[in-house]
């Protein structure tokens, strides 16, 4: 049986990759994809802890399901914003989207 720490290690790696992507990618779509990575890292953690700690309780899986839904919704809204920005600015680079000052 795969031990818990392996799951956690994978999840941590995945989270770090996602974080790196969010902080460094210039393309907004890539940033969005990196966020998906981070969310999935969390999902792995949730499911792993459920399996090893409270297998009788379904709350871990339920959380994971919620996160999917939120992630999907977020991706949809995010993409819509990006498309809207693209229409206005002809660019999806986060460097150009700095109108939220003050």
């Amino acid at each position, binding site marked *: 049986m795969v031990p818990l720490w392996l799951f956690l290690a994978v999840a941590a790696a995945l989270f770090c990759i996602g974080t790196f992507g969010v*902080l460094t990618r210039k393309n907004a779509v890539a*940033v969005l994809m990196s966020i998906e990575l981070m969310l999935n890292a969390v999902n792995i953690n949730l499911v792993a802890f459920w399996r090893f700690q409270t297998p009788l309780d379904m709350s871990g899986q339920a959380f994971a399901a919620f996160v999917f839904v939120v992630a999907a919704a977020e991706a949809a809204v995010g993409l819509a914003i990006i498309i809207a920005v693209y229409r206005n600015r002809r660019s999806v680079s*986060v*460097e150009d*989207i*700095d*109108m*939220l*000052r*003050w």
Partner: protein
Amino acid sequence: MDLNNLNTLPWLIPVGPLLAFVIITLVTNKSRMVRADDSHEYGGHHPDYDGMNVPVVAPWSRVASIVVGLSGVISAWLISWRVFFEAISINQFGKDVIFADSIDWLSNGLDTFRMGVMVDPLTAVMLFMVPLAVLCIFIYSIGYMAHDPRQARFFSLISLFAGAMLTLVVADNILLVFVGWEVMGVCSYLLIGFWFEKKSAYNAAIKAFTVTRVADVVMLLGIAYLFFLSYEFYGFATLNFRDILYNEAFLEYAAGTNAIIFGGLGLSASAVIGIFLIIGTIGKSAQFPLHVWLPDAMEGPTPVSAMIHAAAMVSAGVYAVIRMYPLFDAGGHVHAGDFTAPLLLMAVIGSFTALFAATMGVVQRDVKGVLAYSTISQLGFMIAALGMGAFVAAFFHLITHAFFKALLFMSAGSVIHAMEHGEHHVHEHHAHDHHHDHHDEAHVESVGVGDEAGTHPPADAHAATEDPAEHPREAGTHFDPQDMMNMGGLRHKIPVTYYAFLAGGLSLAGFPLLTAGFWSKDEILADGWYVFRETGSGMHLIVFLVLALAAFLTAFYTMRQIGLTFWGEARTEEAEHAGLGGPESIISRTMQLPLIILAFFAIFAGFVGVPPDFPILGSIFAPNGNPFFDFTKYALMESIQPEKPTFSWIPVLTSFGVALGGLYLGWLIYWRNPLKAGDEDPIKQPLGVLYDLWMNRYYMDDLYGMVFVRPSQWFSAVVVSTFIDKGIIDGFLHLVARAFIWTGDLIKVLNLWLIDGVSDGIPEAIGHFGVWFRRIQTGRIQQYLLLAAAAAIIIGLIFVVSTTLLQAAG
């Protein structure tokens, strides 16, 4: 109320007239609005108001007012006479028996002041005279006021006047006397100013009220002091005449106590109170120096003059001092020539006034003016007599004077009426378009309103209050029906009036033996002479001589008046046509009946006071002693009752001499050589400068105007209202207010740069900081996230390190 209880019956005496006043005022005084130029409905002598609608008493109201007023007076008259006849039927009435009753009236601490009525000999005699004279005046007024547009108001006021006088007469204390006294003052004010449109009328009214009030406030002070003194003595509140005046212990106490005011002058309490009360009488009975109101008081309708001069007002003043005589005499003995201050004051003021007023009476042209001055003079006789201690004689003269003066005034009113009739006739004759109602007093027309020229009163307010004297009609060109120079020969036109006037005039002059005036005046002189002879009191001699001289002048001006009015030939066309509208007229009858009644008393009233030792007549009229004297003296305690003067020829011959001498002189000048139309008064030449002085009333009115009236107006308007109140006090207040406003302004400036500076500076600094600090925000999400991540890491590190360290520390 039990009509047979003589103690409570006096309550009812003033009730009739007072009730009549209330009923007429509230019920029967009803007017209709009539156009003022409707000469049939509205007396033509009144202002025509430019055709405005004015109230005129409705015909039924005239009748009803007469009926109500007359019933009131008749009830008072009947009750009074019943009381009077009961009183004189009692032997030594007043000594032990009096009629008295009282009620609780005014709470004072632990006890209550009682107000009541009392009939003693003085009251009883007054109750004989007053209602009779008032009744005559009422009857006379029916005719006299028949066509006046405000007739009902006249009857209501004169009823109140009568009620007040009767209240005063039956009062058992000086406070109730004062009540009646003042109410009469107001009635006289309203009646003198009855024709209120006329400037001379309302000015005379104000003058009468104000001048008498000068005296009244002093009198009030005297009453207050007396009230205090009686409390100090008795330990309870009383002003009852019997307590104050019929108790030797109290009088001694009053005379022995040093006064709390003017005590430094060595005056006793009784002297100060006495002087204060006498000052009240000086005002009310028109003595020098407060006599100035009385001559003007004839501006009212003539019945009012009769009321004021004879029956009520001025008699009230003398009555009050006669009533209070024991208090004045306290501490002295005037019959022994020992004057107290109040009596001395009265002797001086009275005798001076008697002569002073008589001199002015000599030159008057106005038929009522002569009578007015004669009233002042005769009142002076009474005051002087009382000052000499001639208590009974003063009172006797008061009674006889009331009869003959009422008679004279009403006769003079008839004369004026007759002259107006003549004036009316002349106007008709000359076919003027102006309608005159032929039975109205003449004066009212002078109120700056329409006259023959047809001018109308100016609508402008300021012009309307202008002096009407400037009006051409008033400027001496128009006919004055009261001026004796316009009369003459009236004895043929109005014979009843002539004989009545003759009776009154001779009585006033003191025509020997026959008239009432002789007996009362003679008694005054006899009393004065008697004390002088017994004690050698110089003051009595002086008063005797001055009064004798005044009596001489009285006889002279009476004869002059009769001469100018009735003798000779008519001096004007108006006098030629004078008359009272025929003997059948109701006006003529109601105006003549009272004259006949009063003429009777003016002649025969004197015979009740004939001294028993007077040759021949004494044994006829006073076989058992002088009835008037013997009845009246019991108004006083036995210890101060006046002695009956023994008969002496000197005063009698003096009376004969002055009366006949004066009459003869008047006869000489005005009968033998009657005045012709256009002639000057024959006494003007010999009198010279005195004539002007007397004609102008010694310039006293001008003096008062200059010294009192105008300065007080100036003082009120300029000094008090404007300078003190608006200038100093309000000025100070405004200064304080302004100081506060200035302080406020100062603080406001401070606020601007100090407080506002601080409070505005802090937000501004924060703003500047914000502007600088906002540069941290780039809008780049990744930078934000980086910062967030760094912060998270740092916080995590701190957390880890601190927990580790804590764990290591244990």
